[in-house]
Structures are given as structure tokens and as C-alpha cells.
């Protein structure tokens, strides 16, 4: 669906050249939600702008469907942009237009007849859940509502590809989740391919199928999201994963725990993969008739699987521990004995 081949972008400034994107090659499949994550200055913004020709690569190629974006003439590119739409971190709505007028803006550009515009706008307002807000101005909406208008506007010409430029970075966590759910829903309903860039790992975790990690203009790691979480190879990926897991206070003082449970062993159970939906731990402790105290835990859901860890204090002898390890391992749960 989308092919980026050896794309490079160099910005020439007075003093020096800045290599924003450095020899990036990516393939994005039809219908997938593909994430690009990186810290600011990693080149992800420039990369996503190449996909609709807002930036042209200094060398290399960008292909969407049958069209080579990087060599199209301006007229054809404008036409293509109606099918490769974009939503933005700061929504970029026209304050001078109402919600309905903002959504119909791309339709006006595409020359859709007035009557069809009206019908399409009504459908989209319903789709993004803004019924009753048609005649409000953007200044009367909350951030989440503004982004819904942005999404409706981006969908108005029935695009093949939706580009999300830090689309949730200006939203609070709850609103972020609502917008992410909406993106998944429209992908499923409209068979859309979504490319999103973000610096927030939980966005990748929550909705992406595959992701690329960028640093210094290069893609340092690409893969299915779960693989990135289970087995991050590059330092940057590890940092993102670690930040995401440690975003809640999980620091645990083993000394204190040992004082509280002097006879117990402290185990760290690691969950990687789809099995963690089943009540594995509960089944196993029942089977061996064990008691456990949960000390702390952090389990995260990705798009379709879970990963994370659980610290427990458990009274257990060596034999049972061996059995427990074996049994849990069959369900892809790892066991580490702490201290």
C-alpha cells in the first residue's frame, strides 16, 4: 500500500545542512495501523509529511498505491491529497467556520455538489459523535471534540490513507483513549490505512499493528508492536518500553516485603502474549493449593494482546516452585525469583 524507499531529506540552512530523514525504507500494508515513534527531532514529522507531499524527499521514493508521491506534478498531487488526508496535533480547524463548514471544506476543494456535501457532512458528524454540534464554532468545543471534527474533516473525501501527526499529544489521557478508539473503529469500518506518528508509547501499544522506532532520522527498529514490547532490540525502543511500563509507581522495596512476609519467596511473573487473558495464575495456585500476596503489578493491553509483570509473595517449597515455573512457562508466563 505505502512504500517508502531509501527516503532522505536534507534541510539546507545558512550554516549547515540538517539531515532530518536518513535513508528510510518502510512498507506499510493496506488496512493496518502503522505507528512511527521517536523523540522530538527524530525525523518522524518530516517522514509523515513526505507521505502527502508536504515535504519532498531529497532522494529516494515515496509510493502510495499506484502513485509515486515524490515525483507527481502539483495538480495530480493536489488530487491525490484528497485521498491521503491528515489530522494534526493542534487540530488546525478554521475558527471562522462552524463544525459543519469545517467538515465540508475538503468537499468544497474537491468540487462536490452542495447537496452531496450536506448529506456527507451529516453522516460524518454522526460517525464521530458530534450530533448537535454542527453549528458550533471550534472555540466552543473541547480538545477531544475538536479532534473529532479534524477526523471527520479528514474522512470527508473517503480517503485511502489517514495520516495522524501527533493527533493525541495535546489531549488528556481519557480523551486520548476515546480518539484512539475512534481511529480503530473507522479503520475497521472504512478499510483505511492509518499511519500515525507519536512520542507516546501507549498510543503505539493501544492501537498499532506494527511500528517503527526512529532516532536521528533513521528507522532503528521495525516490527509488530508486541514484538517491540517483548523483545526490544535497540536502546531507544527499550527506553520507550521501559517508560511505558514504569509510568505508574511500581518501585518495590524488597527489604520491606521480606519483613512483612519472612517465610515467602518474592516472584516476578512476566506476561508476554495473548495467554494472559486467561486466569492462569489463579488456576495454577489453586492446583497446588498455594497462597499468594500480590505486591505490585503492571499489565498492559496492546491492540490484541497483553504484556506486563506481577510481583507476588508466595509461600512455596522448591519442588512446587519448579512445577509452578514449568506450568506457567507453558502459558508463556515467565517466573523470576527476586533477591
Amino acid at each position, binding site marked *: 500500500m505505502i512504500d517508502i524507499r531509501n527516503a532522505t531529506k536534507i534541510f539546507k540552512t545558512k550554516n549547515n545542512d540538517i539531515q532530518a530523514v536518513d535513508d528510510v525504507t518502510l512498507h506499510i500494508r493496506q488496512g493496518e495501523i502503522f505507528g512511527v515513534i521517536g523523540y522530538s527531532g527524530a525525523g518522524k514529522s518530516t517522514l509523515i509529511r513526505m507521505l502527502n507531499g508536504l515535504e519532498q524527499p531529497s532522494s529516494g521514493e515515496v509510493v502510495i498505491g499506484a502513485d509515486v508521491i515524490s515525483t507527481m506534478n502539483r495538480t495530480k498531487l493536489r488530487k491525490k*491529497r484528497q485521498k491521503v488526508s491528515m489530522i494534526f496535533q493542534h487540530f*488546525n480547524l478554521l475558527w471562522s467556520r462552524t463544525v459543519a463548514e469545517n467538515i465540508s471544506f475538503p468537499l468544497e476543494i474537491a468540487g462536490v455538489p452542495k447537496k452531496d456535501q450536506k448529506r456527507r457532512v451529516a453522516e460524518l458528524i454522526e460517525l464521530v459523535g458530534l450530533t448537535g454540534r454542527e453549528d458550533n*464554532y471550534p472555540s466552543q468545543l473541547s480538545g477531544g471534540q475538536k479532534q473529532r471534527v479534524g477526523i471527520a474533516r479528514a474522512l470527508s473525501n473517503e480517503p485511502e490513507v489517514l495520516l495522524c501527526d501527533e493527533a493525541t499529544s495535546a489531549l488528556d489521557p481519557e480523551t486520548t483513549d476515546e480518539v484512539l478508539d475512534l481511529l480503530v473503529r473507522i479503520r475497521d469500518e472504512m478499510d483505511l490505512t492509518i499511519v500515525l506518528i507519536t512520542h507516546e508509547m501507549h498510543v503505539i501499544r493501544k492501537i498499532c499493528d506494527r511500528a517503527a522506532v526512529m532516532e536521528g532520522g533513521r528507522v532503528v527498529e521495525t516490527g509488530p508492536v508486541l514484538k517491540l514490547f517483548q523483545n526490544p532490540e535497540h536502546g531507544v525502543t527499550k527506553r520507550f518500553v521501559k517508560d511505558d511500563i514504569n509510568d505508574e509507581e511500581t518501585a518495590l522495596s524488597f527489604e520491606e516485603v521480606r519483613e512483612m512476609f519472612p517465610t515467602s519467596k518474592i516472584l516476578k511473573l512476566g506476561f508476554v502474549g495473548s495467554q494472559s487473558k486467561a486466569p492462569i495464575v489463579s488456576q495454577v495456585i489453586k492446583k497446588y493449593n498455594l497462597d499468594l500476596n500480590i505486591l505490585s503489578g503492571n499489565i498492559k493491553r496492546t491492540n490484541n494482546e497483553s504484556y506486563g509483570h506481577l510481583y507476588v509473595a508466595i509461600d512455596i517449597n522448591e519442588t512446587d516452585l519448579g512445577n509452578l515455573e514449568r506450568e506457567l512457562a507453558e502459558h508463556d508466563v515467565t517466573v523470576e525469583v527476586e533477591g
Partner: protein
Amino acid sequence: MMIGFINAFAEMFSFENVRWDDVLTATYETLYMTVISTVFTFIFGLVLGIILFLSSKSEHAASSPVYGVTAFLVNLFRAIPFIILIILLIPFTKVVMGTIMGSQGALPALIIGASPFYARLVEIGLKEIDKGVIEAAESMGAGTWTIIRKVLLPESLPALISGITVTAIMLVGSTAIAGVIGAGGLGNLAYMVGFTRNQSDVTLVATVVILVIVFIIQIIGDLTAKAVDKR
């Protein structure tokens, strides 16, 4: 000394020299010059301002000479004092208007003097538009003309309106200057009658009428700018 002052004051408010039909004619002439020159200044200033804005932001190599030339002309005409501009433009005015006298003769200088000023205000107004909104329109496949019509103008409308309000008020002042050298209007009345015949009551009336015109322009401008601003 005190008595002289009181006498002068009394004469000013006597209105015995005021010929009200002359005041009416002069008011009409001032309004005529102000309205026509404001309309044309709006058009020319808008075009120049958009050219300045587009050529300064565009990355195309060809546009920077466009910016250079436009900016130079704008700065040049803005730097010429208005009274000198009128004299300087006499040959041009003769050709274009057929006369250099009366309200007609003042229009070219008024418009050419005010357009560069308004062009700069337009440019400032356009620069205040969120870049992201323009980028969003580009990402939807909008061409330059569509962006001008559907993004730049509506999104900068309050600034365009308050800018033309300031310019129109400045033009009222310019018509008075033009009046002194024969363009008619309230400035002409204040000078030719009020000053040369030493009839200060006429000057006072001309001043009050000009103030009323200025206040009305300001109020209309403020209300309109506020009404279109949905931010």
C-alpha cells in the same frame, strides 16, 4: 489678555460666520473622498498585502525578487510625506483623472498614499494566521487561489477590518490636508474660510464634523471586527 482670550472664545462659539450649506457641501466632499479612497485602498492594499505575504513565505526561488520589488515600492511610497506625494503625482493625476483640482484630483494621491500602509497591515494580519491551518488546507489538496479565498481572507477578517478602519481614519486626515491645496472638503473649509478669513467658528465646526466622522468610522469598524470574530 484675559479679555482677549474670552473674546476669541466667544467668537468661536458665536457661529455667526458659519454658512451651513457650505458646511454640508464640504462634509459631502470629505465623505466622498474618504469612501472612494478607502474602497480602492482596500482593494489595492489587499492585493499588495497578499503578494507580500505569499512571496515572503514561499520557498520558491522566483518569489523572493517579487517580494523584494513589492516591499521596496511599499516602503518607498509609505516614506513620502503625503503633501509632497500630492505634488509629485500632479502629472499622473492629470492623465488619470483629467484634473488636478477638487475631490477628483485628490483621489490618486489618497489611494497611492494609503494603499502601501494598508498593504503592511494586511501582511501583518495574514502572518498571524496559524501556519497549521494553511498546512491543513494544503494537505486537503487546496491550491493557492483556494487558500487565499477560503483560508487567508476569512481567517484574517477581523485584522483586515480593523486595519481598514485605521486606514480610513488616516484617510479622513489626508483629505483635510488635500483640502488645503484645493481638494475641497472640511479641510478646505477650515483653511480657506476659518484660517484665511480668521473665522474661528468655521474652523471649530469643521473640526467637530471631522471628529464625528472619525468616531462613526471607528465604531462601525470595531463592531464589525467583533461580529466576525468567532475565536
